[in-house]
């Protein structure tokens, strides 16, 4: 057990280092973009002297490394700073958006994970049957289309033609839980269609792989039923690759939803990030990117730990 703890600690330290490098890359990247916040905010109507006054007020006239260190210092004290553009607390700005994004991700996960596992197990069970081929074709085609296309098809049928769900996910915090679920259903369904294929295919492949091993043959010879063999004997041993795929897809549900958020006008973190990049609001960009990076790092770590817990042999690499 202590070995696992050491590993977790090591990974965490490595994760922090990654985050630091990410923050540097982000800062330099945004710095390289043409124009700055003063110009972006004032737009076409910017007079040179107004831009200069604006820059001074926002401290954009300071050298780059000073601004970076200033921001890093704040972060280390748990202060994300204020948005340059409208002086709102970034923590406050982000928390609502993050909650929205997480809500959508959780909802998509609640639909997609059980669905993918069930379909994967069934596909392995009825390998090469019509059913297996059918769901493979459906899953692979839905993952092959770009997200916005899937989203528009769903909108066309479920919102415009049949009027079952709203075409935009206009949510706020005054809504009741079920009303929220209703309004978020279409984007969640879009995400489900995008991620389910990979998880399902991995489940199926891992199971089929195991079905050829001697102990399954033994179970077969004992006369156990096929479904009992798969669920009781094969599945626990196939968990570690499946968990990795599921967790990586969960990370995608949090950080990869920008397009879906735009199509459904969903006020999540992705839209905030896009907005802030186009307006050069660097503190907000950094904060969002850090949250995304941290999500990835943490979920990856979780995946590793879970994989090892379900398969302790991985602790002793040969």
């Amino acid at each position, binding site marked *: 057990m202590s070995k696992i703890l050491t590993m977790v600690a090591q990974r965490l330290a490595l994760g922090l280092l990654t985050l630091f490098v990410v923050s540097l890359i982000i800062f330099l990247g945004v710095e390289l*973009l*043409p*124009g700055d*916040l003063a*110009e*972006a*905010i*004032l*737009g*076409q*109507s*910017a*007079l*040179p*002297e*107004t831009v200069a*006054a*604006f820059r*001074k*007020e926002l401290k954009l006239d300071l050298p780059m490394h000073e601004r970076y260190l200033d921001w890093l210092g704040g972060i280390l004290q748990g202060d994300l700073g204020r*948005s340059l*553009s*409208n*002086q709102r607390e970034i923590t406050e*700005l982000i928390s*609502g958006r993050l909650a929205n994004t997480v809500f959508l991700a959780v909802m998509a996960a609640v639909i997609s994970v059980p669905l993918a596992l069930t379909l994967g197990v069934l596909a392995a069970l009825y390998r090469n049957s019509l059913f297996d081929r059918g769901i493979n074709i459906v899953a692979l085609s839905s993952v092959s289309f770009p997200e916005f296309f899937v989203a*528009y098809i769903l*909108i066309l049928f479920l*919102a*415009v033609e049949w*009027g079952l769900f*709203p*075409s*935009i996910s*206009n949510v*706020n915090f005054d809504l009741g839980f079920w009303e929220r679920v209703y309004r978020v259903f279409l984007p969640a369904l879009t995400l489900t269609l995008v991620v389910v294929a990979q998880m399902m295919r991995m489940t199926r492949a891992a199971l089929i792989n195991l079905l050829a091993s001697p102990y399954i043959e033994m179970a077969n010879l004992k006369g156990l039923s096929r479904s009992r063999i798969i669920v009781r004997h094969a599945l626990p041993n196939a968990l570690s690759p499946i968990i990795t795929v599921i967790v990586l897809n969960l990370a995608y549900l949090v950080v990869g939803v920008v397009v879906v958020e*735009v*199509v*459904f*006008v969903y*006020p999540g973190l992705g*839209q*905030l990030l896009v*907005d*802030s990049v*186009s*307006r050069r*609001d660097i503190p*907000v960009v950094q904060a969002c990117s850090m949250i995304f990076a941290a999500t990835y790092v943490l979920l990856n770590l979780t995946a590793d730990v879970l994989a090892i817990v379900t398969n302790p042999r991985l602790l002793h690499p040969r």
Partner: protein
Amino acid sequence: MKSIQELESALARGQLTRRQFLAGTTALGFSTAVATTMFERTVQAATPKKGGVMRVGIGGGSTTDSLDPATWENQWIQLIGWSSQNYLTEVNGKGELVPELAESWEASPDAVTWTFKLRDGVEFQNGKTVDADDVVASINHHRGEDSTSAAKGIVDPIENIETDGKNVVIFALKGGSADFPFLMNDYHLAILPSKDGKVDATSGIGAGAYIVEDFDPGVRCELKRHPNFWKSDRAFFDAGEVITIGDVAARTNALSTGEIDVMDRCDLKTVHLLKRKSDLRVEETSGTQHYSIPMRTDTPPFDNNDIRLALKYAIDRDAVVQTILRGHGTVGNDHPIGRSNPYFDTGLAQRTYDPDKAKFHLKQAGVETLQIDLSAADAAFGGAVDAAILYKEHAAKAGIDINVIREPNDGYWSDVWMKKPWCMCYWGGRPTEDWMFSTAYAEDAGWNDTFWKNDRFNKLLKQARAELDTNLRADMYGEMQLIVRDEGGVVIPMFANYVFAMADKVQHEEHMSAMWDLDGLRMMERWWFD
């Protein structure tokens, strides 16, 4: 023959008299009794009714927006501004300047000193009464050396502001300006409540029809009717919701599924499909919004007027209006004054596509063929890149080889516009000639994007600004339109209409202001549900 629906909707919009309506319906075979009932029903619908929650989907809006009027830039925040704030003056549906918070105003004979008398007893949303000190503080918010206000250029001509009692404000200008009351209608110059000479610019409190309840920039803004709003015949909705929907397809879907009641900026490529939906209405207003192609007249070859004329003759304006605007606009005449401007010169001949004349001017400039770069990006306006490519095709017939350079949308206004010698651009336009010319054509203007200097023009500009006689002004502005058309550094191929769509239950007065989109962006205050 018109259908009954068309007759009814024309009547609802006040385009028909009772007699015309009855004649039309009986012609369609309805009995007089039925027609009369129909008339009454429709007229009833045309009378404003209170109630309902208006939900508007707007293409602009960003997380970085704030309630400080000095930073207002996009359509989302402007709509919220026009809903929650009042100004000294107002432009009504017919484009006329009418009093708002000011009850009346008068100028000294040289138009240098302007005295505004304020309306009595108007209340801000926080209960404070609007007085002269508020006006002074609100305008001063944009003035001064360190001003970061986008309206700094507009208030720069003000030398001094003082009050005379509770209800009178006196502006002393640096020079005469006959249009000064018009400038006081600029959307930045909202009258905010003040304390000790300073305004609280970010609270969102104003004297307008709706109170900002919940402000979530980049997402939505919720509005609630101001119970003590001073205009008795306005502000019919109980509440409003202004939602940012950047994607035009999402906006269109939201309208067709009833998620919103009004959308701005319809997709011109699909608007004919939208028109087929019976429960929706597509409407448009034509104002001063125009698409321009400014050349830097301080850079060769654009410093030669013959080259500029050659380029002006080398674009087929009708084709551009049909292709890029799908007919939702009018051809431009290489000057920025629109048909809705008061001194638009109707007598000025329209420039048309003429490759031979273009060739002639090239010869005058001493060249046979011309090769030039044109920078374009859709940041300038939707379809700007397509327009540039069309232009390339048209100009080829005149021996002009336009090399279209596609620039990134990001940073277009800081890196391309006013930097590259020739690029695509747009202007929302201005309600008065002086405002438009002094913003982008005067030699010392901050946004003189053609870097154009014309002595006669600049002299006329100063003269006309201080002139109070409307006939003389009309002559001067007419001549200035001619000078810009023939000597200016800009190709203005088209004026674009504002095209928006709404649910059928949304009603408005007969005339809509064309100064901005959506009835001068005052729809929250002016429209109603039937």
